[in-house]
């Protein structure tokens, strides 16, 4: 159970930082060019989903430890 906690705890650090950077760049781009926000926002979501991947891998490992 400790392993599950450590897995998800360490695994969520990187993507948290990464998604924050992605969101801040997207908001900066919208700030420069508000009319392009319709194109920027969906791409931001897609990039966040892909950046979230490593957190999800850690989550799957911790769920396997807990419930497998």
């Amino acid at each position: 159970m400790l392993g599950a906690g450590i897995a998800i705890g360490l695994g969520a650090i990187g993507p948290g930082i990464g998604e924050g950077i992605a969101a801040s760049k997207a908001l900066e781009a919208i700030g420069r060019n508000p009319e392009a926000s319709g194109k920027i926002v969906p791409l931001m979501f897609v990039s966040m989903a892909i950046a979230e991947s490593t957190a999800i891998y850690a989550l799957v490992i911790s769920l396997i430890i807990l419930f497998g």
Partner: protein
Amino acid sequence: MELNISLAPDILFYIGSLPVTNTLIGSFVISAVIIAAMLLVKKRLKKDTPGKFQNLVEFLMSGAYDFVVSIIGSEKKAKKIFPLAFTLFIFILVANLATFIPGQAAVTFNRGGESVAIFRAVMADYGMVFVMTMITVILVQIVAIAVHGPFGYMGKFFNFKSPLSFFLGLMDIVGELAKIVSLSFRLFGNIFAGEVLGAVMLFLAPFLVPLPFMFLGLLSAVVQAFVFAVLTVVFVKLASEIEEEELVEEASM
């Protein structure tokens, strides 16, 4: 009342020696619904005054087709990969959204004394996600062989020009295996974690508190379907790209 979460789907009954799980039943029901809806659209197809549902389907399909053409670059390639990519998207989308239909978790089946839910999120079954990932990955390998030829395909991995290229070629093999793991775990992890989170939240604080988690689950359901389909298109594009060196070789031959 205890929390009942399991990684593997529950087996409802056996047909011969084939275990029928609740995700299998769910996937059949979803396929039947999608096929029935599309057959209905086809039967009532009108060119001049389309009905509302036909309008919606055409809007979705043409938007998705333009998007795929914008990613993959050429219309010829897009026509080949669009059916698979769009089918994956619609199937995963409907499968994920079906978990938000109210009341579907309450339909249970009495198996030997304990009640087991008949429907479970289809993508929360790793077997299902793994099969879809293998379809994509094997398709990508076939595209690579078709475009580069079998020796070109093997040459990408076993590149004897220099020790560095040889090492990078071996790393490409690892990269292909990593694609399988990453593509399948992304979809499976998101959906399964959504289910677990929903179950735990309903167990701890059943009123109002699960709502934000369910909104997140709804968002991730749509986004993950989209990401899976888009990554399929991107991998096929990467495999079908002819690099500059090969073009020069072909021109000089």
